[in-house]
């Protein structure tokens, strides 16, 4: 009897300790259901022009095949896609070379010449067909007309070994299969935006793991106010080409999802940087911030530095992301928010790669989401 009492009390104690340990490393479930920006335009069926993919991977990639898959997937979701010939003629006529964004002028021309209501801009960030394959895509839907606005934005980073399961039963070795999975995610997300149910449910998130190392928010910054923000490509100190542009896209995506922030279309920001010949030596000066903020009519300029944005090929390696970001307010001419984050894919991983993140995109996405939350909470 004594044995059984002792044993049960020990069992309870062990269970309690175990639960206590678990709570220490627990990931926080985000209960918030994020409402995407509402728009009167989505009430009617939009005609969408799917631009050729922008290659930010710096590797040879089957861009045309991925684009074709995207178009087929969108059509299967019942979306109205602009005819290929019309789009081709428009691109040739306007000599469009840059497909990573659209300028105000291009947005107007798109509306009046092709009748497209929105343009889908997709950036391929990572593509590797070495087993296990990897892919990272970011897409956004931008309205055409006088004021190009980001209506929807989503991204995905996948690796074939993300969820291998027991005996590697669920290991994806075929790159085509992985591409289809990524494309399906994006088209479903876009279709949800058009559907009556315009909600994105927050999944299981590890806030503690991705919390910024350091962050600062000025007392003059009011989190509840509505702000328009221009995200400048980050100053790239990493080995990865286009890491600055990729980080900017991550921030645009997360800011677009916030109710009180309106992110300017990156193509418009790029056009202004080129037009006013703004070259950043080590970041934005106050004079450059003033000029850009007044020309783009924004309240805030977000910029930063990227030190590491590292993916790896095959099974062995670790994804790394290391960046710092700061927000300069036009009115006060001050840094109103700053943060610094660094994570590796195997942070907090102790047993059998359980919880490992295999792409820099997936990790950066979580890091930026957590970072952006420090802006509003």
């Amino acid at each position: 009897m004594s044995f059984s009492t002792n044993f049960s009390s020990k069992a309870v104690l062990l269970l309690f300790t175990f639960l206590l340990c678990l709570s220490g490393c627990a990931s926080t479930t985000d209960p918030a259901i994020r409402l995407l920006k509402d728009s009167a335009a989505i009430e009617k069926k939009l005609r969408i022009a799917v631009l050729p993919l922008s290659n930010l991977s710096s590797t040879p990639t089957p861009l045309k095949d991925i684009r074709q898959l995207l178009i087929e997937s969108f059509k299967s979701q019942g979306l109205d896609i602009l005819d290929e010939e019309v789009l081709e003629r428009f691109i040739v006529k306007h000599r469009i070379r840059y497909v990573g964004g659209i300028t105000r002028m291009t947005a107007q021309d798109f509306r009046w010449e092709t009748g497209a209501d929105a343009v889908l801009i997709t950036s391929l960030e990572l593509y590797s067909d070495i087993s296990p394959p990897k892919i990272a895509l970011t897409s956004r839907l931008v309205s055409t007309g006088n004021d190009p606005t980001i209506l929807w934005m989503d991204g995905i980073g996948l690796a074939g070994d993300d969820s291998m399961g027991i005996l590697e039963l669920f290991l994806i070795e075929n790159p085509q299969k992985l591409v289809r999975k990524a494309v399906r995610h994006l088209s479903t997300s876009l279709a949800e935006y058009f559907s009556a149910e315009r909600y994105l449910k927050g999944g299981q998130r590890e806030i503690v793991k991705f919390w910024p190392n350091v962050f600062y928010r000025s007392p003059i910054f009011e989190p509840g106010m509505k702000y328009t923000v221009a995200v400048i490509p980050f100053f790239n100190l990493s080995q990865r080409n286009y890491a600055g542009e990729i980080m900017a896209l991550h921030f645009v995506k997360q800011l677009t999802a916030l109710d009180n922030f309106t992110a300017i279309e990156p193509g418009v920001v790029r056009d202004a940087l080129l037009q006013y010949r703004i070259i950043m030596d080590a970041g934005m000066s106050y004079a450059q911030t003033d000029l850009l903020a007044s020309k783009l009519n924004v309240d805030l300029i977000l910029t930063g530095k990227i030190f590491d944005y590292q993916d790896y090929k095959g099974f062995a390696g670790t994804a790394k992301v290391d960046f710092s970001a700061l927000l300069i307010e036009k009115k006060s001419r001050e840094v109103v928010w700053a943060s610094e984050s660094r994570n590796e894919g195997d942070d907090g991983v102790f047993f059998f790669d359980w919880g490992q993140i295999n792409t820099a995109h997936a990790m950066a996405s979580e890091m930026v989401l957590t970072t952006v939350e420090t802006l509003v909470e």
Partner: protein
Amino acid sequence: MMRLGNITILKKLILSLLLASFTACATSGISTDFHDPGMDFGALRTVAVMPFENLSRDKLAGERVRDTFANSLLATGAVYVIPTGEVARGVARAGLLNPAAPSLEEIVKFAGIIKVDAVITGVVREYGEVRSGSASANIISVSLQMIEIQTRKVVWTASSSKGGISVWDRLFGSGGEPMNVITRAAVNELLDKLFK
């Protein structure tokens, strides 16, 4: 009786040897830090963190440590830190040949352009992995100094070293703490010394 006396002598000998061995590992206890007692650090409103001189093998070490330090200093809320882009503009306008080690005249000219109360310069002496035999670990060693513009004096200097190969690393080969962890530890120590 004779035997007991021998044991006592032996005990004393062991104790004195033990104490003597401790003195071999002792540090001098002299601090290399300086904190101007006549300076009112609360009066400082705006500071600029200049690019750090990098004496390590990692070519990004200076910029990484500077970024962590500038953000951490800003996060204290005690002073406003000028963004690096504005510092770069000031460096270009003042025509500083070596912004990591400017002369006093250059600092005054630079501070007049970007309107700061103090300028912080620094040196990253070590950053990255060190090896000793089969053991390895990460190490960081940073020295900083603050020059106040009004008095044109160095009002604070401090250095911090973190990481390195511990007994644990030698025995179990753990590889030491990650670089960002020891960088933050070193920066926090420097900030503690600044605001003490």
